[in-house]
Every structure is written in structure tokens, then in C-alpha cells.
């Protein structure tokens, strides 16, 4: 991958990036364009099933992600932006690799053979490759000196079946350091945000979010950056703290480090307004 131009990926945005987290989607596209990486949105993709489907309905949870696998053209890796969508796609692919009966059903459902070699990656794997290739080295960026709390949520935890898959703990710290920022050390970087409990048991998630955000504040972070759009939303909608610590998508900070971000409407969409911080740091006009 290092040095190669015009990398192409099939791209699975997922429901959050398509709607509530559109600023995540757009900043991710912008970042990739600048790095000469082409994202081709998977035509007619469907929801991976999310947490709710596997919670209550086994069959659609098992088969919903497989339609997306069938939509992926051969020869191009499939990249998911959302860690949870990635996990559902990857688990479906592993299940099909292991089970001939399921492969038969896959063919019956989608009218094509299962591709056991389809590579399914997260945005973080792409970033990891770029980091190895030195894409973030020795840059003077507007993020210089910014104290940031990197928040991974549950993306670092996987079911036993995925134990031996790649993990990216520390990647945000590494990239932020290369960009001149100062990632803080703190105790809540891998604390689950509560996902759907934010809607169905806000009392629980309000406590969780208070723990996470006040943890970042105690570590003197000026902002939090998330790996997952769902975490970003939960930290914003369930915060009852008087402080106004902004919460960014990682793709937004990556775009800001390239001098892009102002005037694009991304930051207007945040419930905790990050613009005062960005103006103070001269990252936007």
C-alpha cells in the first residue's frame, strides 16, 4: 500500500454516517480525497442490522450484513467507516467462510457465489497503513499543542471469534502525536458509551457519559475525539455537565490538520459547539 496512488475502496458508510453523522462522512471523504484515495460507495447498501437486530431477531441479524458482502464488486477491499458496522460485516464473512450450508443459502439469497477473499477493513486499518507509510510524519499542523482525549469506546473489544483480528489501540494517539497534537492519558478511552441505552435508558447513559467527559476534563483535554459516530452522538446528547468539552469525529480532526474544515458546515451540526475552541486555535476563521 505505501506509495501507491489512486487506492480504491468499496465504501460502506452505514446509517449513522448517512444521516445523523453526515459531518463524519463528509470529512472522511475529504480526508481520503486529499490522500488520493477513492471511496466508491457500495451501491444500494443496507443497514448492517445494528445492535437491535441481533438482540431480538436472529435470522435477519445473521443475513442482513451478507447482502452488503454480495454487493461488493470483486478486486476491491470493502471499507466500513463505523466500527460496529465493520464488526457485523466481518462476522458475517467469517461465518460464511466457515459454514458450507450458509454459503449455499447465501447463493440462493443473492444469486452469486460467496467471495472468501473479500477484504473487509475499517477506516482505522487504512489510517494505520497511511501511518506506516509516513503520511502523518513531520507535519506542522494547526493541531499543534492541542490536548485531545482519544476515545475508542467498545471498538477495542470484540467477540471471541474475532480475537485474532487486528486491533488499533493507540492508533489515534500515534497519528495525533505525528500531527503535533498532545493526546492525553486518561482512564475512559475504552469505556462503552452505552449505545442504544442512550435512547431507552437515558438515566444510565447520562451517568456513563458524565464519567467519560469528566474523565477527559480531569486529564486537561480541550476536546474528545471518537472512533465511532454513535459514541460521538451519545457523548453529545447525554451530557449534563456544565463544561462544554467538544466531541469530534476523528475524520474531522484529520481534515482540520490538513487545513480543511471551516465553512463546510460540519461543526454547525454539533450539539456541543466546537467552534469557539477551533477559532481560538485558529483552525477555522
Amino acid at each position, binding site marked *: 500500500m505505501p506509495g501507491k496512488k489512486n487506492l480504491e475502496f468499496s465504501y460502506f458508510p452505514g*446509517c449513522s454516517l*448517512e*444521516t*445523523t453523522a*453526515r459531518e463524519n462522512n463528509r470529512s472522511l471523504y475529504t480526508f481520503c480525497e486529499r490522500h488520493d484515495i477513492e471511496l466508491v460507495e457500495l451501491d*444500494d*447498501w*443496507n*443497514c448492517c*442490522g*445494528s*445492535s*437491535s*437486530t*441481533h*438482540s*431480538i*431477531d*436472529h*435470522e*435477519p441479524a445473521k*443475513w*442482513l450484513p451478507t*447482502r452488503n458482502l454480495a454487493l461488493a464488486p470483486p478486486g476491491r477491499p470493502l471499507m466500513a467507516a463505523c466500527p460496529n458496522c465493520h464488526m457485523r460485516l466481518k462476522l458475517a464473512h467469517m461465518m460464511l467462510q466457515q459454514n458450507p450450508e450458509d454459503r449455499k443459502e447465501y447463493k440462493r*439469497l443473492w444469486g452469486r457465489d460467496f467471495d472468501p477473499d473479500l477484504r473487509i477493513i475499517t477506516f482505522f486499518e487504512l489510517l494505520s497503513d497511511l501511518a506506516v507509510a509516513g503520511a502523518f510524519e513531520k507535519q506542522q499542523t494547526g493541531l499543534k499543542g492541542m490536548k485531545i482525549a482519544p476515545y475508542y*469506546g*467498545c471498538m*477495542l*473489544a*470484540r*467477540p*471471541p*471469534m474475532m*480475537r485474532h483480528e487486528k486491533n488499533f489501540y493507540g492508533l489515534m494517539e500515534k497519528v495525533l502525536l505525528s500531527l503535533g497534537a498532545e493526546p492525553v492519558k486518561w482512564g475512559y478511552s*475504552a*469505556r*462503552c458509551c*452505552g*449505545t*442504544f*441505552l442512550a*435512547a*431507552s*435508558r*437515558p438515566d*444510565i447513559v447520562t451517568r*456513563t457519559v458524565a464519567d467519560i467527559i469528566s474523565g477527559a476534563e480531569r486529564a486537561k483535554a480541550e476536546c474528545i475525539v471518537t472512533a465511532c459516530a454513535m459514541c460521538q*452522538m451519545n457523548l453529545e*446528547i447525554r451530557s449534563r455537565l456544565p463544561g462544554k468539552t467538544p466531541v469530534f469525529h476523528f475524520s474531522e480532526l484529520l481534515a482540520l490538520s490538513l487545513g480543511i474544515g471551516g465553512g463546510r458546515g460540519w461543526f*454547525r*451540526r*454539533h*450539539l456541543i459547539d466546537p467552534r469557539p475552541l477551533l477559532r481560538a486555535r485558529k483552525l477555522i476563521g
Partner: protein
Amino acid sequence: MVESDGKKRSGVLPDCIEMTEAEPGFTTEINRRSGVNVSLCWQCKTCSGGCPFAEAMDYHPNQIIRLVQLGVKKAALTSSAIWICVGCHTCSTACPQAIDMSAVMDALRQTAIREGAAIAEPHIHDFHKEVVNSIHRYGRTHKLEIMLRYNLARRDPFADFNLGLRMLQKRKLDLLPSKVRRVPDIRKLFKKGKAASHAG
């Protein structure tokens, strides 16, 4: 195990489990449905130590496994823990026996629904049903409609009203759904073409 206000304390098993209530077939069923062998668990409690939501559960994750090991079906299926668990896999990552807790919880919830057990967290169940219905309807989730229908289902139409307004102002909630073109592809994945709320 019950406090003076009548609420059950989190993480306390009954002093005495009446083994006459146990159904050995239950252990087998949950093993089969989850693909997990729960007898691998030796009750080290690592799962519950790391669980971010254990305090909000009636039984802690290791206790749920214990109830399944012993076949104490009713207590397991009517627990709040199986609904509070969000499947974040924090426990599974730390489990020395690599038990897929999320798969066990899925099997328990689905069994509770199928057998009509009393659901300890009906709101959480309602929310899941609305998400699944949305996927059935559009192939993708439409968050505004999910929230509105969920509020109606729990008879609290103005819950999170101000938050909803702010999200609309910020254009975080779209009025119209994003849909897949070939919705029949999605519908055929649901049993008899029915979504969750109709199936129960």
C-alpha cells in the same frame, strides 16, 4: 436480596436457589442457540468486574451465566440484565475462557420473547422493535421515525422533546428516510416477511 424499598439490589443472587425449579434442558437450549458452552465458565467474575453497566443490572453477567449453568430458567429470562447488556464485548475480551457473553445474552432475550416471559425492561425491547421495524420498512434505520414511534409505544410522546428539536435544528435528524432501492431483498430476510413488532 431485596431492599426495604422493595427493589432488588444489583448483583445479589438468591440465598438459596431451589433446584426443583431448575430445568436442565434450558442449559442445553441456550448452549445450542448461542454456540457457547456455558459450563466452561468457572465463575471468576472477570466479566462483571469489567462490565460498564453491571450496577444497573439485577444480576451481574457472571450470575446470569450461573443461572444458565444451573438451568434456573425463569430468573434468567425475566432478569433486567439480559436487556441492559449492550453487547459491547468488554467482558468477552477479558474472559479467560473466551465465552461470547453477547451471544448468550442474545439467546436469552430471544428465548424470553419467544416464550412470552415477563420482560423486565419493556422500553428497551420496544426500542429494539422500532429499530428492526425501520430496517424492515426501509432497509436502513430512520432515526426520527424510530424515536417518534418508540415514544408512542411507551406512551410518552414528549420524551426527549427538547433534544429532538435541537437535533432537528442542527439537521442531525432527517425528516425523510434514506432507503434501499430493492426493499424486497430486505423483507425476505424476515420470517414470513414480518417485522419484530408483529411477531411479538
